[in-house]
């Protein structure tokens, strides 16, 4: 129920803040408390403990001993760690370039179609598929002797491909299936549907072409969503594990060309029970991601009017 105006207030002016009653304050705190405690115990506490453990020779059933910067020093001098970061950055960049733009374009183009076509296309393109099951299927498709893709390539007249066995192209082949998944497009479509049609009508009256309307209306209105999704894409790309792990065996073959930092944390570090080293590398990755995210969010603000 709308509260009546107080003396001195008028429509169009902001009401002065009111003092919350004690009960109201307690109620608000109690509502937030479960989520806060959950986040503290399952989010921040493990992070704080990880920071601590990264300075120890952490062991599962024995108390850890403080070792100072030994773990970090060891990782710093390991050429494979540098290589894992290189692979991770390359994977993230390639993933964003190849798979980030496509859902935006698809969503924009789908909006131009008749409603019944749009619904069918959405159904086909946005089918929820199990990520792991898809990954395993794609692994079979990449088989160089018996895989479907080799069959298609050779019957189209192309030379035999090495797919996941090619150290130069393995990251591309890992990302390739993602180009065909338009899942994030649903979010863009929801944002596009919220843009008033009067904006486009006005642009048409002014003589704007299709692409001009996209550039001056659709993309600026999508900017907050794009900025947010790009943040998730950057973080997700830098934390990638499951796809390369399943497709290229536990060690990121061939020759570590697909071994991301998280894969390196899992194998060989965690696999050899080098828990202190694994935690230290996780902390290093955390710091890198945090720096990149802060820089990115400083440069790219969500508000299109800024």
């Amino acid at each position, binding site marked *: 129920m709308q509260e009546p105006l107080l003396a001195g207030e008028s429509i169009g002016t902001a009401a002065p803040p009111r003092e919350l009653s004690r009960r109201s304050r307690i109620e608000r705190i109690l509502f937030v408390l479960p989520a806060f405690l959950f986040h503290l115990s399952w989010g921040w506490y493990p992070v704080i403990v990880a920071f601590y453990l990264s300075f120890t*020779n952490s*062991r*599962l*059933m*024995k108390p850890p001993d403080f070792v100072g910067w*030994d773990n970090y*020093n*060891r*990782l*710093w*001098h*390991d*050429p*494979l760690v540098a290589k894992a970061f290189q692979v991770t950055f390359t994977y993230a960049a390639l993933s964003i370039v190849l798979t980030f733009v496509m859902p935006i374009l698809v969503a924009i183009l789908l909006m131009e179609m008749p409603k019944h076509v749009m619904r069918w296309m959405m159904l086909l393109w946005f089918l929820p598929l199990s990520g792991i099951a898809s990954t395993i299927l794609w*692994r*079979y498709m*990449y*088989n*160089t*002797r*018996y*895989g479907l893709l080799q069959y298609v390539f050779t019957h189209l007249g192309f030379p035999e491909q*090495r*797919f*996941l*066995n*090619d*150290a130069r192209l*393995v990251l591309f082949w890992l990302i390739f299936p993602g180009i065909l998944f338009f899942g994030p497009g649903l979010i863009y479509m929801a944002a596009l549907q919220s843009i008033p049609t009067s904006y486009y009508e006005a642009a048409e009256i002014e003589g704007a072409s299709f692409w001009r309307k996209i550039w001056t209306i659709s993309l600026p209105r999508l900017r907050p969503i794009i900025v947010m999704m790009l943040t998730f894409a950057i973080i997700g790309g830098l934390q990638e594990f499951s796809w390369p792990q399943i*497709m*290229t*065996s*536990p*060690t990121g*073959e*061939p*020759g*570590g060309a697909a071994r991301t930092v998280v894969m390196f944390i899992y194998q*060989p570090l965690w696999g*050899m*029970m*080098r828990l*202190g*080293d694994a935690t230290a590398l996780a902390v290093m990755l955390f710091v890198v991601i945090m720096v990149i995210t802060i820089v990115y969010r400083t440069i790219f603000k969500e508000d299109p009017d800024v």
Partner: protein
Amino acid sequence: MNAFVQGMLADITPLISKYKLQERCLPHLWANWSQNSQVDGKYFCYPLNEYSPDVGTMIYRKDLIAEKGLKEPQVGWSWEEAAELFKGLTDSAAGITGAGFPTWFLPYHMAFHGWDILTQPPVPAQPWHWTRDITSDPRWVELADNYRKVLHEDKAILSDVALGGGDEEYFKLFHAGQIAVGRFNYWSMFGRPTEPTSLSAMADRVGTPYPDMFGAVSVPSGDGYQMGNGVMWGPVSYSPNQTAEQHDMGVSLVDWMFFDIGLDMTKAGIWEVAKDPRAVFSAFLYMTGKQGYEGVPGSAVDAWGQELVDRWLEIGKIPVEPQRDVFFPAEQNPAPSNQAIDDQFSLMVSDPAAMDVAAMLKKGEDDWLAAVAGFASSTSEADFKAAAQEYFAALDDFIKTNYSEFYANRFKPFYEGKVLPNIS
């Protein structure tokens, strides 16, 4: 070893004596198990009786070998004989590749030429007491080049990253008749015989008696050496948080189930349900050497044929070389991985293009040495030297006794040139 260092395992040494385990096992299997199951002179697990000569076995299509008039492999065969067999079995028109191995098979193949021994000289004076010396011996380049030739030029070996790092996908190819030789174990050969994915089902489908269709052999040896790292078993360990009485109860149960009347009851139960000797004798290699069971007619020979049973028993008798972990104190500090070197092997297997194998091995070695600079052993220099003297003396004696050709040509120069000067 890792589980012990992490403090996860209870010391059950007194129970090994109490249940007279050594007296009940065949001597060569007891020697094998006790070598692989001790840390710092203590036992941290109890075996489940059943074993598999897992490190270094292959299963092959005997019928295809006979069909092509090729020579059937024997235990102790060489890599040269294996390469000829793989090439002879490859039939691209029929869609058959001679052999299929995961991409990590190349370093594994090198190990059967003494790689694990000859490329790791001890250096007690350094913080990490082991180093890697790969590039001073041209034999490793030669072996890698030979393997790549069979893989990429002859196309007689199938290796694909997309098939994963385990045996499962290669076993499916073997089952489908697309590869004729694979690196599988005894459980792959005899396990779950009533299931459609088993080799028994494959033999039934083809209509060929099982012993005529499949054979087993050790991984090809090299330079007169056969790596004998032991056999696989499924040991049981116990929590250090339990009491001695609880450990005793746990060991007593395992012993009754797998070494005593429990085993007979299990086999009799399987026979009662399946009435198929293959189901009963899907496991027939036991540390105690037990072959017959109360209430069960026949033996493994009735299920699989005398030749196959004898072959697996023969493989199980490959001498086990002295294990490093038995002689040296358990390493409490983090240890370096061999990933840098394995990465180079992975590239050699994945890329058919001509490459400078020597330069790649050098890179692997350099990367490993760069990484190892950050490691320090928990064992003192003096303790390490003492353990190294004992270990290498045992290894010297073992190799001299069992592999004289390898000893004279490969091990002795290494031992006298790179080991003794450092540990004397």
